[in-house]
């Protein structure tokens, strides 16, 4: 059946992405308005509205629709997840962290607004993500919204993004970083928020416990997949192609999948993760699961 859908596409991923990215961008544009003090809000908008791929919001909406919910139910959560993603990028790029000058093809937030404003803009996006979910999610029982808030919170802190970043920082210069250690970093630094995106969508859409857990596993696989592909791209692509500094893992002598297992084995590993991810969707209606399958394939095959 998979073969058939490839030769005779009933689902156009290109159209889907264009449609969803458009509605996500509109929603993001509308939810952070240019209030006083203007400069903080400008800084928030500068990074949030930069041309991101919106993978996380799309995953959130697709998961919600898969379990029977609608785009509008998932949209505040989808935007919140993108705010958290943006916030973590702003803080990660700071001179005291990864010290990056370029992000999504533009100067990083602190390069434009200064370090102090960049820290505050990140903090403000973090806070606003929670406010936005709590205030703007409509047509859903409050208990589900509360569960979503708890899941989002867990994905950011010491069991999520922050844990990954901490272990990553502490690993710099270590010579004996193994695969397990690398996996810890990526499961937290990258997969945790992808997981939150999918799980929030599934919870808000009214998914059963079993459905939510299947989708959670799906997200973990594609989260790891995302990072393996990122590592491969870092050694095979230029900065211009990536829209961010290429080859910096090599320069920083960072542990990466290509470094630990070689490029070929890394590519095989990526294929396996993609397959494991899609296996989690086998119990769902294949037609309804098409967007998530396509998103997994997109993450596996992306060129930047």
């Amino acid at each position: 059946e998979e073969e058939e859908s490839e030769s005779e596409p009933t689902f156009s991923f290109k159209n889907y992405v264009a449609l969803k990215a458009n509605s996500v961008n509109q929603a993001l544009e509308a939810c952070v308005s240019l209030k006083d003090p203007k400069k903080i809000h400008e800084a928030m908008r500068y990074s949030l509205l930069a041309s991101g791929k919106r993978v996380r919001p799309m995953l959130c909406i697709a998961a919600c629709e898969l379990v029977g919910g609608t785009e509008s139910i998932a949209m505040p959560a989808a935007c919140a997840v993108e705010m958290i993603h943006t916030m973590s990028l702003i803080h990660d790029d700071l001179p005291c962290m990864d010290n990056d000058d370029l992000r999504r093809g533009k100067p990083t937030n602190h390069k434009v607004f200064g370090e102090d404003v960049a820290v505050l803009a990140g903090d403000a996006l973090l806070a606003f993500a929670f406010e936005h979910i709590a205030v703007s999610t409509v047509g859903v029982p409050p208990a589900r919204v509360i569960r979503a808030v708890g899941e989002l919170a867990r994905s950011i802190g010491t069991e999520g993004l922050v844990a990954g970043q901490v272990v990553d920082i502490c690993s710099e210069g270590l010579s004996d970083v193994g695969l397990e250690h690398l996996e810890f970093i990526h499961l937290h630094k990258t997969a945790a928020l992808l997981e939150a995106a999918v799980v929030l969508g599934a919870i808000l859409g009214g998914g059963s416990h079993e459905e939510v857990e299947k989708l959670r596993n799906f997200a973990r696989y594609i989260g790891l997949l995302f990072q393996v592909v990122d590592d491969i791209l870092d050694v095979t692509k230029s900065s211009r192609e990536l829209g961010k500094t290429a080859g910096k893992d090599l320069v920083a002598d960072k542990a990466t999948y290509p470094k630990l297992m070689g490029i070929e084995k890394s590519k095989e590993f990526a294929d396996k993760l993609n397959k494991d991810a899609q296996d989690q969707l086998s119990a769902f209606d294949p037609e309804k699961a098409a967007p998530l399958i396509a998103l997994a394939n997109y993450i596996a095959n992306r060129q930047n």
Partner: protein
Amino acid sequence: SFSSTPSLSTQFDLKTYWTTLIGEINKKLDEAIPVQYPEKIYEAMRYSVLAKAAKRAPPVMCVAACELFGGNRLAAFPTACALEMVHAASLIHDDLPCMDDDPSRRGKPSNHKIYGVDMAILAGDALFPLGFRHIVSHTPSDLVPETRLLRVITEIARAVGSTGMAAGQFLDLKGEPNSVEFVQEKKFGEMGECSAVCGGLLAGAEDDELQRLRRYGRAVGVLYQVVDDVLEEKKRENEENEETMKKGKSYAGVYGVEKALEVAEELRAKAKKELDGFEKYGESVTPLYSFVDYAVDRGFSVDSAS
């Protein structure tokens, strides 16, 4: 100097009330942040949240506001802890070299001085969501309906956000000297307001009562800071040491000690006037009155000692 009016606080034993409550809150905070892998970040978080000299004003005010309406203390504890977590997070970030560049806090080295700037940023980034998570996972569902909990989450998020404490910090760094009122309202009033309102929300207070708590909490939050600034300014005058001057804006620094003391008296009166509206709740409003006097009175003890 401050006029010391005889008040309920002379009969009400604030010290016992406060120390008992702080003891309970400290225990809950200690349990809320167990050390696990990666240990370093948990240690950084604990260093600031469990600092011995912390007065725990936000959590105590939250619990007291909840109890004013007959709410169960157990309903308020998770939110009280969350308030302390987000409060600590914002202090950690405020102290950073790129912000106020403060090497010390509460008589101890600032978080980044011990753990490094990168860990300090991440400790703050982790404490904000931990606060929200703690509320969701620890608030007894039989005591607080979900709709109220969502309002509590909204209230805290708004208080720390781009029009609240983050706005205050921004104007503290970039604003004109005459923005000091706005800075103090946002940086300090916001936390007091949020703490009082959250306590009321958890107990199911009516909208007009929440508005009253809002004005009360804001006045008390600013009052604490104005008195702090006066003490700071006096200390600085005594030492005649320019270097002890803080980077941030203060009433006393901008308008002088005399004017700051007038403002403090106005705030004290304003806060108490709001509480007068809670007459029907009888004795249970006493702790909230006592905070107002404590904010000013502690000035005496520190003042006379210097």
